[in-house]
């Protein structure tokens, strides 16, 4: 492998990490506030992809603009789902079996609604720019990936700003810390939870819509990504946006460089293998490693 190959792989991995961060961050916020592991995440990603396709085909929106437009639509879907279903779950400060099964049932429903509405053939979004590349010295960048990365990273940074500098963000973080204490100090947790759920689903939809510009998709779209999102969350330690970003980067790097030795069909096996390694070596995720290093230093 030459240095240029290496640099190309590295850049590709970073671009991939951007989209991985978008798809994982939605799961993290919902988990943080509601302690619900959103198994339906993949279903919402699939919906986002199809919505982007519809906006692109019917309204001739640029795919990236379409993806950004999908965000508010999916957020509203998320809030509706919250009031229709999630609200009725027994509240808990740790993940429960009913919440898991409910979200799983919802995933099945979404996925198969997808089959009913859009059929089971593979779809994709092609624009004249799809195969454009940017030459940055010896490094070759597919243009669309750069745009996807920019849109995704921009939204994650916006989320970080929202969490840090707004009242909603502070209320949300209070509930992440302790749901009951949040209630005591007068945070309307129903409202915050519904908005959080909308936010999480919005990010799921955005991730799906952005991925739709890169890969073909069908109603079963998203399942491998659900597992990747989970690996990332475990890697990142389930706590923060920055943890998710680090986890996404690690997974993207491992996957990108594994291609050198393994056929592409095994990519998912690689991410799962990484999960196993992390669970055995680092039960607390990367955060615990950083903590351990810091303590030694």
């Amino acid at each position, binding site marked *: 492998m030459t240095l240029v190959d290496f640099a190309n792989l590295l850049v590709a991995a970073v671009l991939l990490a951007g989209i991985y961060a978008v798809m994982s961050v939605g799961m993290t916020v919902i988990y943080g506030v509601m302690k619900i592991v959103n198994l339906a995440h993949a279903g919402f990603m699939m919906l986002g992809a199809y919505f982007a396709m519809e906006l692109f085909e019917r309204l001739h929106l640029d795919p990236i603009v379409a993806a950004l437009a999908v965000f508010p639509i999916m957020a509203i879907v998320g809030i509706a789902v919250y009031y229709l279903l999630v609200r009725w779950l027994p509240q808990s400060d740790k993940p429960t*079996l*009913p919440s898991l*099964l409910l979200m799983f*049932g919802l995933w099945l429903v979404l996925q198969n609604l997808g089959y009913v509405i859009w059929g089971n053939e593979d779809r994709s979004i092609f624009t004249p720019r799809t195969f454009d590349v940017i030459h940055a010295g010896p490094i070759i960048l597919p243009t669309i990936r750069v745009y996807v990365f920019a849109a995704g990273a921009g939204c994650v940074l916006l989320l970080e700003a929202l969490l840090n500098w707004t009242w909603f963000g502070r209320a949300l973080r209070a509930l992440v810390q302790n749901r009951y204490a949040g209630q005591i100090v007068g945070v309307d947790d129903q409202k915050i939870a519904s908005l959080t759920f909308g936010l999480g689903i919005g990010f799921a939809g955005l991730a799906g819509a952005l991925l739709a510009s890169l890969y073909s998709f069908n109603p079963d779209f998203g399942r*491998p990504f*659900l597992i990747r999102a989970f690996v990332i969350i475990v890697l990142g330690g389930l706590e923060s946006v920055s943890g998710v970003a680090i986890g996404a980067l690690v997974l993207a790097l491992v996957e990108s460089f594994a291609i050198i030795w393994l056929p592409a069909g095994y990519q*998912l*096996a690689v991410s799962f293998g990484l999960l196993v390694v992390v669970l055995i070596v680092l039960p607390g995720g990367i955060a615990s490693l950083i903590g351990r290093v810091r303590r030694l230093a």
Partner: protein
Amino acid sequence: MTGARLRIFLPPIALLGVLLLLPAFGIQPNAVRLLFVTFVWMTASIAWNLLGGFAGQVSFGFAVFYGVGAYAAAILIDGGRLNPYLALVAAGMTAAIASVLIGLPTFRLRGPYFAIATIGVSETVRVVATNLEFTGGASGYRITEPRPFNQAEHYYTALIVAALAFAVSLFISRHKFGLGLIAINQDEDAAADTGVNPFVYKLKAHAVAAFLTGVAGGVFARYAAFIHPNGVFGFPISVQILLMPVIGGLGTVWGPVIGGVVIGVIEEEIVAYFPQVHLLIYGLLLIVIVLFEPGGILGAIRRLQRWVRRIRDRQAGKRTADARSKKPDEVLWGAGSGPGR
């Protein structure tokens, strides 16, 4: 005491007797096939319930054991020319070994994290199986047996396997092993503080469940005579196996049996009429059960019984008062009679 035992053991034995005699009355081959499929599903359902219902560890990855069992049986019968029944036992053992390999890392995760990890395992195994040589890859594997096809033999095999699974489930529910699993389900830390080793117990339950599921997969493979990775390792298999106990009644002995019957019998109909959307219907069913009747069909029946009893009590108001005043005595009597469960 004997009366209580009779109530527990008589119904399954009577049911088994009826089912054993059924083919002798010359029922339609199609009905026999339907019952065969139901028994195979029921076995997997009972197996899943050991881990998911008793111990509370939801797995979305039982297709792995079903598939491993199916392939192990297929390869041993077709390639190894092994006696089919020995091959079924070997299929179960292979699945059990697989379950230990999977459980060692994944049981470090708790509850929902374990559940998601099993999706990962299941996907990985499917991908690997599709790319392997000896599974026949994506094109599948054909099983040829020297003996001619005999539907009754398959019927009895599946029935006996399901009956064994039920016996295992009943035994576990009434002994120390089941008590430990339920304790883990209720509160894993408190169980450990009371002397239960949660990790080992989960591994054991996983292995027993995998064995039974593997045998079920083998029974199915022999009958179908053709299997392919996307079929037996497919996610829909995992979904269906999980759904049966949830529909019937999680963590009960009879729940997975009822769920197995429901899915085994109605699946045919649903798939025939709505080929695309049967998972949609399953999803809706799951949502309805979680939100309205977490106890499944068995829970609904019990609720109905309570409701009927309450109405009957209200009609005979005075008798109710008598019954209420008797209650403390009953409790005391129960205490005196030793292990009354």
